């Protein structure tokens, strides 16, 4: 086999995938950036080049900065809660001797449900009069009937709780798989040295988990910034925009007010934010070298 033959074979094998990606991924990326520089309202046949005007409008729009704040809050709180709960669950699973397969299967259940299903499940759980939440609340406080998704103070925490429920198992599973790979001798040595449970966790388990936690942090942060289904079903961004994330804001500008140009500008901002986060993570953890 010649080097030239290898090079030709490489392009033959790559060509189908790269042609498809060129049409459905690369071209749309270029096109969305071009669209973001236009004022474009298809139903009125408007398509004018306006430069950075859409971005200038975004920078002055209070709703955009509100969505930015909601996205940041949603991402930080839900990812932090998921990491802490996920590690705790993984440590508990690792200590389990019998029935681990059942535990793993049960944990996978929330994770593999379609986001729309999770939304429908929690919409019902949060129902003001018949929902599970308020039935439990009624046991404790007879007269209280909080409107979980309608009260501006409760809506974001309620959406975050649903997201944490859905994705904690992913982190638990990832961390558990890493824990399984740690040789028992490591812990035996720690026990011989007289390390207690707390010391073992902080000094041995957590440092061993560092790489897998960084990966989980990246995946979950990206997913949280991209989240759409849950808010769309549960609140639609309301009440009064307190759960409107950047993705909902962008989608609303694109398809509810049908301003393709302006909507594309907000879509570009979301895309750039996510890709910058991924790039920053790769650079910081040195995984770029793995590429």
């Amino acid at each position: 086999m010649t080097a030239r033959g290898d090079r030709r074979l490489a392009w033959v094998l790559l060509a189908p995938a790269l042609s498809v990606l060129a049409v459905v991924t690369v071209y749309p990326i270029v096109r969305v950036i071009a669209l973001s520089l236009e004022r474009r309202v298809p139903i009125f046949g408007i398509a004018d080049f306006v430069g950075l005007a859409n971005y200038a409008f975004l920078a002055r729009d209070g709703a955009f900065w509100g969505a930015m704040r909601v996205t940041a809050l949603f991402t930080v709180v839900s990812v932090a809660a998921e990491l802490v709960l996920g590690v705790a669950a993984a440590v508990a699973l690792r200590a389990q001797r019998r029935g681990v397969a059942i535990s793993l299967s049960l944990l996978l259940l929330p994770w593999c449900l379609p986001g729309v299903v999770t939304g429908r499940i929690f919409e019902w759980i949060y129902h003001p009069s018949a929902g599970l939440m308020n039935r439990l609340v009624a046991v404790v406080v007879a007269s209280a009937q909080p409107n979980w998704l309608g009260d501006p103070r409760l809506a974001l925490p309620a959406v975050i709780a649903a997201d944490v429920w859905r994705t904690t198992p992913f982190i638990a599973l990832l961390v558990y798989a890493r824990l399984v790979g740690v040789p028992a001798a490591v812990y035996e040595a720690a026990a011989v040295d007289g390390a207690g449970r707390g010391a073992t966790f902080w000094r041995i388990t957590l440092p061993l988990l560092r790489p897998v936690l960084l990966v989980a942090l990246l995946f979950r942060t990206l997913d949280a910034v991209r989240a759409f289904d849950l808010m769309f079903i549960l609140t639609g961004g309301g009440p009064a925009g307190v759960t409107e994330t950047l993705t909902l804001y962008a989608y609303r500008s694109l398809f509810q007010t049908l301003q393709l140009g302006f909507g594309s500008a907000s879509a570009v901002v979301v895309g750039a934010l996510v890709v910058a986060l991924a790039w920053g993570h790769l650079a910081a953890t040195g995984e770029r070298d793995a590429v």
Partner: protein
Amino acid sequence: MRSSGLADALVLGGVTLYATPVVWQLATSLTASGDPADVMAGLSLAHYRAVLGASPMPRALANSVGIAAAVTLLAAALAAPAAYALARLPVAGRRLLLVGIVLSTALPTVATVAPLYLIVRALGLRDTWLAVILADTSFALPLSIWLVVGFIREIPRELEEAAAVDGAGRLAALRHVLLPVLAPGLAAASLLTFLFAWNEFLLAYTFTATEASRTAPVALALFPGVFETPWGDIAAASMLASLPPVLVVLALRRHLVRGLLAGSLKE
């Protein structure tokens, strides 16, 4: 040891409690009144009959099966050869390609949904399976390629070289030597693609307009209620829409864990 038995029971109890929201929805779907508190009074399949008999759900489930299967096959067929080239053959600009592929796995669907919408409209594909398949592939393919590149790199090169020395042609060596070893990895990548395509909502919601192409998540999001919300029917529809991903994940759990860990842990 009694104490470990107790610990096992506690963990099992904990994960069971964790599944409460699903159990609550299941109980809602199985009671005639749609009130899970009545579940002890007797189970009823009335909501399932209503959903399967007189709602858009059966058609939506069929659409979802077709679309998710097509995306899974398409992504695997395109990703496997490309990944082999990127992992094993001399490719000019390989690093740049791989960085581009990794970064496009991070891309949110909302970022390119507008141009995809214009493409779909220009090709006259609105409200067809093909529109959803194309859009899903745009997001599933980069991840598949990236995962499979990782799996191929784990396989020792000597395996194919030995086959080549034995006189097998390169493609024959790939098919008979590499492919069997790679199969679990391909299964893991395909499982993740299937889950993505089945669960995807934003793209399917945008490109579909009628029952002709609406997927199960879209039909569930738009589930009709005339005067009041039919919680029992919605619960039954949610269970039906969840069944394929749940069954696939339970059947292929081992591959799934491998897929989740792959391409991400370089230690």
